[in-house]
């Protein structure tokens, strides 16, 4: 393998494609792999969208559409897991990570392109195993995306035998895929940057992806371990998570699925929850940090202004990443854990609010005295900030242990996490696609369709989730197939509100088809983009060809001379100076201020 020192990547052997199959299917080019990840993630994402419609139909008009409880429970389980893992994680790291890391760092490719290629194919396998759950006896699992045992593997929950097996197996396979990709991203970022590219000159997108990948490599093991143990509990009859249980549905004392295994005894259901959230909370930031990074770049580019407080932004990402490992049990305040854990976890959780708030301030302060171009990516970026503010602030309710007590497991939680790690990152994904599509395909996305898509999505999601918080205050519990009409906690006005939310959900969902149509049509008919349509500074816009070819940079890698945010530098001729322009560049004068973050 090539040496780590310069000249390192110029000599990197590239695996040249010889046929359609090696060019588009078994490709080792990080850009093709990124697109493969993106398309697959979007395809499962559409399934998740349809599943959410099933849920909203039942909630809005209980019983009218003949949706059975099993289907409802299975739908929200699959919706949750697909969105969190197979769409958001896969898209932000698999797709954005793959596409941007080498290009923004000025590298030829990932350090181990072959492993990178396998990563996608293993991910595809995990998706297939997940969907295979629909075809096994009993169907997919309906245990909720948190998959809490004992319920997940006992009769009385849909898919408690084979559905949960397909889910757990699929997760384990996904983790293998993620690890292969993730090792590549981290090693590339740490060891294969181009000349002049110090860590503190990296665009924030890369910082976000880097931190998130490190989190993933350290957090997914906990999920892997719990998946293995739950499979053993279900099929071999071990009792890791299973205490002695006398389930009337199981017919007395319950044991493993295989005949002859004894009854469960002595295990700890809380162990699963701890392990799950030891993964699960970092997972929130695995999704959020790349989104933070990407949105910082979008705001800076389209506001024509450097990102405000770059160094603090980087440290905030690092701090959030570190803290995310000691806050996990704030998902378990009412789970019956050791009561004094509440003090510890409430404190650590609210500490995280500080770096997070700093990021929000810096985004808004970047807008201050800017020169904002309201392009479609910028619209999505602004929508992200306001959505994230709502989601982040409601996180302060749920993180503060006693405030969480009346609100946990109600619609308040549903609204909170959809705002903060559902809608907000997806807005960034959309923004990112509108932003980088010209680089990927060489054509612009249609602007009018883009704006339509934006307004429906932004206002629509707000209309869905903002009122939902108030259902939570009322006390309406989540994951209910039917709230009943006469309950004290479910007044008729709430029924009315639920119908409204459902209607908004259908509209938002339908608007996504505009986006897909836009992607397809613009690929063939879009306006040619040119090399740098947004007049951005980071390296991916400086490739000799658009779209970039295999190997990205031709004979010589670019050399970086400045940070990625030299917008509107006083005295400079243009309002942006790309990273590879020498210090005494554009205007012949030294760029003193550009040195800030170098």
């Amino acid at each position, binding site marked *: 393998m090539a040496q780590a*020192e310069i000249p390192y990547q110029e000599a990197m052997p590239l695996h040249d494609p010889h046929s359609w199959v090696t060019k588009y299917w078994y490709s080792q080019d990080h850009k093709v792999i990124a697109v493969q990840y993106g398309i697959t993630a979007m395809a499962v994402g559409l399934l998740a969208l349809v599943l959410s419609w099933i849920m909203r139909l039942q909630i809005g008009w209980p019983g009218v559409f003949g949706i059975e409880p099993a289907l409802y429970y299975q739908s929200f389980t699959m919706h949750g897991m697909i969105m969190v893992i197979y769409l958001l994680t896969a898209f932000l790291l698999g797709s954005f990570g793959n596409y941007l890391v080498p290009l923004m760092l000025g590298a030829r490719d990932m350090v181990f392109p072959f492993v990178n290629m396998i990563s996608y194919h293993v991910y595809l396998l995990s998706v297939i195993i997940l969907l295979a759950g629909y075809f096994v006896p009993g169907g997919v699992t309906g245990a909720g995306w948190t998959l809490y045992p004992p319920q997940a593997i006992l009769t009385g929950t849909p898919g408690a035998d084979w559905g949960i097996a397909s889910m757990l197996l699929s997760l384990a396979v996904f983790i293998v895929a993620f690890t292969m990709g993730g090792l590549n991203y981290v090693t590339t970022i740490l060891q294969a940057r181009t000349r002049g590219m110090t860590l503190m000159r990296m665009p924030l997108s890369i910082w976000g992806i880097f931190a998130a990948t490190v989190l993933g490599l350290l957090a997914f093991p906990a999920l892997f371990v719990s998946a293995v143990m739950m499979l053993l509990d279900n099929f071999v009859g071990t009792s890791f998570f299973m205490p002695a249980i006398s389930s009337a549905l199981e017919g007395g004392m319950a044991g493993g699925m295989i005949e002859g295994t004894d009854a469960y005894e002595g295990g*700890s259901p809380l162990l699963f929850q*701890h392990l799950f959230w*030891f993964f699960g909370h970092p997972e929130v930031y695995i999704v959020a940090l790349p989104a933070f990074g990407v949105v910082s770049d979008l705001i800076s580019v389209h506001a024509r202004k450097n990102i405000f407080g770059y160094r603090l932004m980087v440290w905030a990402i690092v701090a959030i990443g570190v803290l995310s*490992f000691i806050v996990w049990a704030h998902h378990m305040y009412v789970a019956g854990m050791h009561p004094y*854990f509440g003090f*510890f976890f409430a404190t650590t959780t609210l500490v995280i609010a500080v770096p997070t708030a700093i990021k929000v301030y810096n985004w808004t302060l970047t807008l201050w005295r800017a020169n904002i171009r309201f392009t479609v990516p910028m619209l999505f970026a602004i929508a992200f900030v306001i959505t994230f503010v709502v989601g982040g602030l409601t996180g302060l309710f749920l993180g503060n242990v006693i405030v969480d007590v009346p609100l946990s497991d109600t619609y308040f939680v549903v609204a909170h996490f959809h705002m903060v790690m559902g809608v907000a990152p997806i807005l960034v994904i959309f923004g990112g696609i509108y932003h980088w599509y010209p680089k990927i395909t060489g054509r612009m996305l249609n602007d009018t369709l883009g704006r339509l898509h934006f307004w429906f999505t932004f206002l629509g999601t707000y209309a869905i989730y903002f009122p939902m918080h108030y259902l939570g205050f009322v006390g309406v519990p989540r994951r209910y197939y039917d709230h009943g009409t006469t309950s004290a906690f479910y007044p008729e006005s709430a029924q009315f509100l639920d119908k409204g939310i459902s209607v908004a959900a259908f509209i938002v969902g339908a608007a996504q088809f505009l986006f897909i149509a836009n992607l397809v049509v613009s690929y063939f008919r879009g306006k040619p983009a040119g090399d740098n349509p947004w007049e951005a500074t980071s390296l991916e816009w400086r490739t000799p060809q658009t779209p970039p070819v295999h190997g990205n940079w031709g004979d010589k890698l670019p050399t970086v001379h400045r940070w990625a945010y030299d917008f509107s530098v006083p005295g400079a001729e243009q309002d942006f100076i790309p990273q590879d322009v020498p210090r005494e560049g554009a205007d012949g004068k030294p760029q003193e201020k550009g040195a800030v973050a170098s």
Partner: protein
Amino acid sequence: MSSEVGQQHPLSIYFAVWVGLFIVSGLSYATDFLQDGLMRWGLILLFMFVKAGYIVAIFMHLKYERWALIYALLLPPGALLVLVGLMWMESDYTWLTRIEYFGEDPYAVAKPVVH
């Protein structure tokens, strides 16, 4: 750094560590003959960390790496210490509720092993 080719150290270091590992393993095996208690536990952990230290520092050459790498590898497992510590408290708490409410015997002894 780059002038040096890989990790070249005299073989004697490896032999010394090798012998050291044998001795410490022997010692940690010997703890099995001690009475249960703080003393035994302390020794088990001590020998464990000595062995782990030898392997990581010398065999895996971490001692000879630069601090940038050493810290990058040794700091993240700190998160695990938090997990282990809290899970220790948690499992103890669960156990106590079982003793109190389910009438389980806290002093139960395992059945003798007959091969």
